[in-house]
């Protein structure tokens, strides 16, 4: 058996290190280390509650809005506030802009470039992969950066800037939208739709969203195997056997995305396991810090009462990340979980056949691009200029609040307690906290650690390419993970 220390891992957000034990050309065991700690949960203590809205977006430069939304929801929960419909729609548009930009960035900048590596030089599609996805030079990489730049102008208007807006308030949006702006914003969304339909899909978004089985996906792929970047990915995925690579724990968590003024969420909530969807038992979340460089004297804690205190010399620890578990179980979150919880037939079929793997994670993310852009168009059309965008209210000096939602990478929760008018405790469980969790007290590996077991390692590889595909298929955000 040999041991490999892999890092720095790039084209993920933040720093990441993976330790691999390898025997007979396969990974037998993996340990995931989130190697940086900043201490946001410590920094937030003692602050005025509303200050969280300045601090939490700065946890992460790529999921900044997601953090703001979770915090605003926690404060709204604390203060008993509800956003008016306009505020809810604008907040959803802002969050969706970020989430979809992250999916685009992941596909074009983080995930696909690995297929340009020399290890794939013998593949018939390698030259085309280089032409499209070579970092810094690839035609599609450059086109995607340009489309992303235009896309984010939605947030120049709606949120002042991106990242790190303070426009998301517990009472709604600080930026009202007039009728003329609504027209202009819709035109900007249609511009992005055009990019996706021309470059990513080579098909109308509605046609992609209507794919209802692997057979339908395969037939669409076979009709023109290299047209558009999704079909190119499907070609590559077949040759690189991505459908069998990196199977996760098989239990998927979604808190539900984009709450609607009439109730419910646009993308579903629930825990999906073995073909069945059940409600999320939020009270059943525990964070286990056995293998984190954090004090765990009190044992696994619900985030409502959890603590975060560094213990850098703790024996047996190998990461700054805690191990969240739901009802004692290991879960995976992300676009795949949201599409399962929404009962999308394509993802139900793909997961039924292959499980949650590199292939199904990437397809779910691209499907979400096709599904959410039309929703954003609906939300913008639903704005009623003249009606309130923000109905703020006072926050109590004592109390607790929780804010749950979906970031691009999965389920994000904020829990805060206020005493004497200041934050006495603030706990965050981010998507990659779940997905890249270390082992728990029982020694059970986290979702990525499981997914890496069995990964093939070629002779002489020091940074195995299969490991890179698996790691990046989760679209990890390490700065959110530990915070």
């Amino acid at each position: 058996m040999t041991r490999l220390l892999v890092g720095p891992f790039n084209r993920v957000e933040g720093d990441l290190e993976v330790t691999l034990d390898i025997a007979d050309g396969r990974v037998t065991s993996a340990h995931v280390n989130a190697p940086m700690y900043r201490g946001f949960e410590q920094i937030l203590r003692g602050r005025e509650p509303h200050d969280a809205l300045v601090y939490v977006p700065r946890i992460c430069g790529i999921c900044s809005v997601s953090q703001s939304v979770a915090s605003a929801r926690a404060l709204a929960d604390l203060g008993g506030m509800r956003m008016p419909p306009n505020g809810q729609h604008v907040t959803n548009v802002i969050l969706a802009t970020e989430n979809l930009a992250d999916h685009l960035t992941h596909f074009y900048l983080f995930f696909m470039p690995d297929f340009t590596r020399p290890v794939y030089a013998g593949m018939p599609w390698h030259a085309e992969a280089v032409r499209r996805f070579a970092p810094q030079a690839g035609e599609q990489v450059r086109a995607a950066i340009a489309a992303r730049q235009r896309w984010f102008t939605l947030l120049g208007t709606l949120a002042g800037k991106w990242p790190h807006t303070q426009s998301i308030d517990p009472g709604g949006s600080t930026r009202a939208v007039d009728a003329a702006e609504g027209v202009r914003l819709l035109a900007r969304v249609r511009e992005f739709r055009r990019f996706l339909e021309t470059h990513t899909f080579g098909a109308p978004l509605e046609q992609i969203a209507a794919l209802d089985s692997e057979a339908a996906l395969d037939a669409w792929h076979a009709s023109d195997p290299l047209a558009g970047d999704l079909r190119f990915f499907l070609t590559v995925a077949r040759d690189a056997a991505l459908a069998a690579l990196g199977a996760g724990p098989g239990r998927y968590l979604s808190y539900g995305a984009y709450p609607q003024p009439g109730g419910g969420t646009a993308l579903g909530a629930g825990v999906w396991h073995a073909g069945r969807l059940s409600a999320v038992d939020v009270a059943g979340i525990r964070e286990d810090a056995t293998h984190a460089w954090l004090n765990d004297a009190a044992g696994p804690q619900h985030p409502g009462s959890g603590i975060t205190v560094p213990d850098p010399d703790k024996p047996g620890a190998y990461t700054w990340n805690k191990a969240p578990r739901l009802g004692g179980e290991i879960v995976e979150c992300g676009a795949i979980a949201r599409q399962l919880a929404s009962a999308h037939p394509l993802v139900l079929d793909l997961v039924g056949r292959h499980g949650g793997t590199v292939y199904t994670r990437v397809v779910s993310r691209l499907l979400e691009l096709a599904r959410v852009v039309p929703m954003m168009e609906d939300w913008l059309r639903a704005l009623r200029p003249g009606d309130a965008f923000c109905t703020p209210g006072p926050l109590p000096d004592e109390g607790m609040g929780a804010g749950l939602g979906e970031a691009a990478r999965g389920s994000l929760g904020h829990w805060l307690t206020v005493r004497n008018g200041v934050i006495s405790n603030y706990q965050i469980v981010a998507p990659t906290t779940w997905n890249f969790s270390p082992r728990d007290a029982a020694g059970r590996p986290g979702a990525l650690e499981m997914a890496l077991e069995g990964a093939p390692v070629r002779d002489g590889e020091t940074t195995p390419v299969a490991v890179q595909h698996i790691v990046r298929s989760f679209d990890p955000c390490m700065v959110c993970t530990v915070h």
Partner: protein
Amino acid sequence: MNLLWLQSGGCGGCSMSLLCADTTDFHGELRDAGIDLLWHPSLSLESGGEVTALLARILDGDLPLDALCIEGSLLRGPNGSGRFHIMAGTGVPMVEWVRKLAAKARHVVAVGSCAAWGGVTAGGDNPTDACGLQYEDDVRGGLLGAGFRAQGGLPVINIAGCPTHPSWVLDTLMALAADSFSEADLDTLGRPRFYADQLVHHGCTRNEYYEFKASAEKPSDLGCMMEHMGCKGTQAHADCNTRLWNGEGSCTRGGYACISCTEPGFQEPGHAFHATPKIAGIPIGLPTDMPKAWFVALASLSKSATPKRVKVNAVSDHIVVPPVARRTRLK
């Protein structure tokens, strides 16, 4: 110009902001300016051993390093060990990597307020002993020391902001690549003067409300946010309202206060961010260069002269009273 970009105790948001640069071809713009990205955490193919080999070549002097860009604070803790961020795959604290690489670099650039001053990561009781490259808040020193000069002769260039505007970064890097950036281009805190000699107030769309002290009272109100909502735009050094963000944005245009994120120590203002601290009803933070007595006198005069239109619109989220449309040629 060979450029190496590393991230430590921050959020990566300055890189994400940089990708929003107003160009149809981001990588083409870098290339055409003569900037060669040796490695960037989000934008390069190389991973793992390929990266550590590159760093070794720089330290050995085999590969010239013209610009070292650091994003994020430098985490010196716990107990001076730097173990709050060990660079993955190397077993070596990031602060050590930065010290060694900075000694080889022709220019050292702090991208963002974290790398410049410590920033948000140094907030609260600063649990990680975070600091900037050459400052700890407004005190010179930081990781590299008060006397540090890069090989090219300049101190650390502090492109402060949280996040940084993409064109603050690009304009600085392109000027460095063209050898057209000198110490005279830095303000007293080491920030590029092309943006730090401006105030956020310049070009603010709420200026008419400011003039009449017609103030916003709650989020989404159109009025000036200086009196009640914590806005520091009249004091903050940056050109955010003339060099707009993501198309047509800025904090004040987005309906929220400027928190002066380009200034050292902005993360701990000593008051709640969203409320203006006052003494006897007068904001403590007065507009830059304005004598207090004049401010009080002018504020009181302008309040009494506020047109109804401005007064009403200031506390609404949309124009309730439009400007009167006169029929004759305006004089």
